Each structure stands twice: as C-alpha cells, then as structure tokens.
C-alpha cells in the first residue's frame, strides 16, 4: 500500500527534489516495496517526456567529432593486442586474475591519489603493452593513465634483468609531439617485477600510447634502443 506521503516523496524524488536527509530512507522504502519502485520509475519517465516540449537545436559543429575521437582513442588504448602467431604464448590460468588484481590496485592507488587533487575527476585509461619482437620481455605490462593529474602507473612481471650498463625506459606517445615523450627509466626488482608511478616530461593529451625500450644506463633523451614492448 502506497501512502500519500510516499506518493509525494516519489514525485519529488522523480524530479530530483527530495531533500538529502530523507532520500536514503525513501530509497530504502523503495527497496522494500516493488510497487513504490515502479511508481518512481513511471513518474520519472513521465517527467522526462516533458523534454518533448523543447524545440530541437543543432549542437555546435565539431561536437560529434570530439565524441567520436574520444571513443576511438579509448578503444585503441583499451584494446588488448593479439600476440604474434609465431610467438603464441599460453598463459597459466591465474594470469588473467593476476592482471585483474593489478589493474584494480592501480586504479585504487590512482583514485586515492586523485582524492587529494583538486578539480573534476577525469577518465582513467588503461593500456596493455605486449612484446613487439622476439626479445624476451614480460608477458604483459599494464599502464593506468590519469590525464587529470598527468600521472601513470606501470605494472609488469617476469621482466628479464638487463646488463648493468642498460636500463628500461618508458615512452609516452602523444601524436602532438614528433618524438615519444620521456616517461623515465624504471628498475626491475629481484623477482622481475616493476610497480612504478611516473610523470612524463611533457604535458600529455587524451589517452596516449606507451612503449618500453632498452636504453644506455640512465636513459636517453630520445628513444635510441630497440622498442621491446608497446601498446596498440
């Protein structure tokens, strides 16, 4: 039985007018009473229909291109590259879970860092790097990138150690720059893992791509050594 009081709250809730201090109680009441939930949905849909009264107006030129570009960039960055046929890898069953855990930790870390930063939240992007050739590398590396804070985090495992006069260096590929932007040199721990937070040397726009090369000890200003891993 829906009371007149609940009817009033449903109407206010449907228009986002319910006061914050009673919203939680009302939502709890909705969870207990499917009929009340149905009423809220119906009222909300009815209210939304008022938008039919507004004359249509063409959005600014270029807006669709911005949307399409953003979607295209996010797809490119998130897509997981297919390993080359001749070097097909068979992952142990725990690898996807481990990768998921790493991603979750990365997102969590960046999220917590974000809480301390002012400004609006932005979308994190995730890039998976895979081997570009036959050189021994980690099976996969993951970069979580936060464009708002210009901060990224690289996580990888089972990366071979290099000779003492060589270092791995991360590069950030932003099409606005002629050369890859230096993401810094990172160290591999004794167990072959790296968990590294980096800040590129230049401002990066959108959802960039990433690459790892082998450079002389201390790194290079411009990538010189072989690129061994890259995102697509």
């Amino acid at each position, binding site marked *: 039985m829906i009371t007149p009081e609940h009817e009033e709250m449903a*109407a206010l809730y449907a228009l986002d007018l319910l006061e914050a201090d009673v919203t939680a109680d009302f939502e709890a009441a909705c969870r207990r009473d499917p009929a009340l939930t149905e009423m809220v949905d119906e009222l909300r849909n009815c209210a*939304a229909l008022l938008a039919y009264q507004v004359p249509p107006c063409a959005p600014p030129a270029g807006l669709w291109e911005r949307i399409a570009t953003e979607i295209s960039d996010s797809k490119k960055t998130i897509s997981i590259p297919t390993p080359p046929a001749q070097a097909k890898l068979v992952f142990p069953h725990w690898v996807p879970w481990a990768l998921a855990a790493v991603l979750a930790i990365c997102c969590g870390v960046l999220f917590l860092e974000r809480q301390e930063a002012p400004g609006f939240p932005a979308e994190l992007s995730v890039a998976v790097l895979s081997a570009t050739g036959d050189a021994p590398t980690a099976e996969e590396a993951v970069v979580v990138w936060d464009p708002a804070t210009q901060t990224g985090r690289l996580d990888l495992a089972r990366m071979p150690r290099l000779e003492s006069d060589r270092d791995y260096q991360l590069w950030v590929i932003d099409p606005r720059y002629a050369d890859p932007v230096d993401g810094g040199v990172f160290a591999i721990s004794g167990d072959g893992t790296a968990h590294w937070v980096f800040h590129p040397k230049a401002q990066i726009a959108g959802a960039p791509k990433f690459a790892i090369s082998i450079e002389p000890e201390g790194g290079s200003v411009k990538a010189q050594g072989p690129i061994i891993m890259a995102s697509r």
Partner: protein
Amino acid sequence: MTTDPEPASDETLLERTGSGDEAAFAELYRRLAPRLYGYLRRMLWAEGDRQDVLQEVFLQIWHRATDYRREKSAAFTWAVLITRGRAIDRMRKLQRIERLSDRLEHESPPEISVPEPSEDASYAEQKELIRSALDSIEPENRQPIELAFFKGCTQQEIAEQLQQPLGTIKARIRRGLLKLRKQLLTKS
C-alpha cells in the same frame, strides 16, 4: 516495386550501440542530440557547459548502452534522464545555478537538418500527446514541475519563485505528476 525498409527505432539503435555498432550510435546522435541540446539550453546558461555536458551524455550513452532496457523506458526518455542528471551535477559542481533568462528567447537557434518524415512524425505524435496531457493539468500544479524539470530549481527556489509555502509546492508537484502519469497512461 520495393519499398524502403522501415527505419530503425531509437530503441533498436540504442541496443545496437550497446553491441558496439558505431553507425547506429552516429545515427542515434543525429536523432537525439538536437533535442537533448535544446533541453540543455534551458538548463544551463553557459554555452561551454552545455557542450561539455552533451559530450559527457553521449560518452555515457556509448559506454552504458548495454544497461538500457526497452521494456523500462523509451530510448529518448532514457537519454533525457542521463542528460538531466549530468546537467544537475554540473550545476551543483559549479556552485552556480545560472539559468537562461529572457534573453535566450531573443537568440536564434541555428538551423538543423530536417529529420526523416517518419522520425518527425513519431516525435510530433509524442509531442502532441505530452502537450495534451500537460494541458489537462491545472497551471498551479504544472508550473512547479516545469520549474524543476527545465530550470533545475530546488524545492526552496520553486517556493520562492512562486511565492508559495513549501508544503503547498510539494503537494502541487505530487498532484501534477500523478495526474500527468494518469493522463499519459490513458492516452497511450
């Protein structure tokens, strides 16, 4: 003689968008964006905010189209609810509830391409249905609903603007919205 196939409904386009169909998404944008943008012009004063919100709305539609259930609402309604939520978020974030003043009425909106006749007919039919349902609601009950929906006013702001006690405003919103629902159910 063959006839052109029936154009896909907004609902079908939205479902195809959920499957990653970019062409369906582009067509959905062509159909819905002018109406959602028109709505945002009523909600938000700053042009930059309107454009940002419309972009956010369509990115959300792209990413969340799989959540859409046609048995729960029409595609347009679903999109309007997303738009409204985003616009209200923007207002609150900016800590300014700036609405279009009378001068908006003196602006000339840019021309838009004329929709396909079948789409136009469908929207015109819906618009007429809503208009007729709204006309059956007493003005004193309709006004606070429109202030909330089109201008994002809070209860308090509505009460101040209409110079009525808060309790009266709440009761009027309840009566108005319940009647709108009843009228729409009857007419449809």
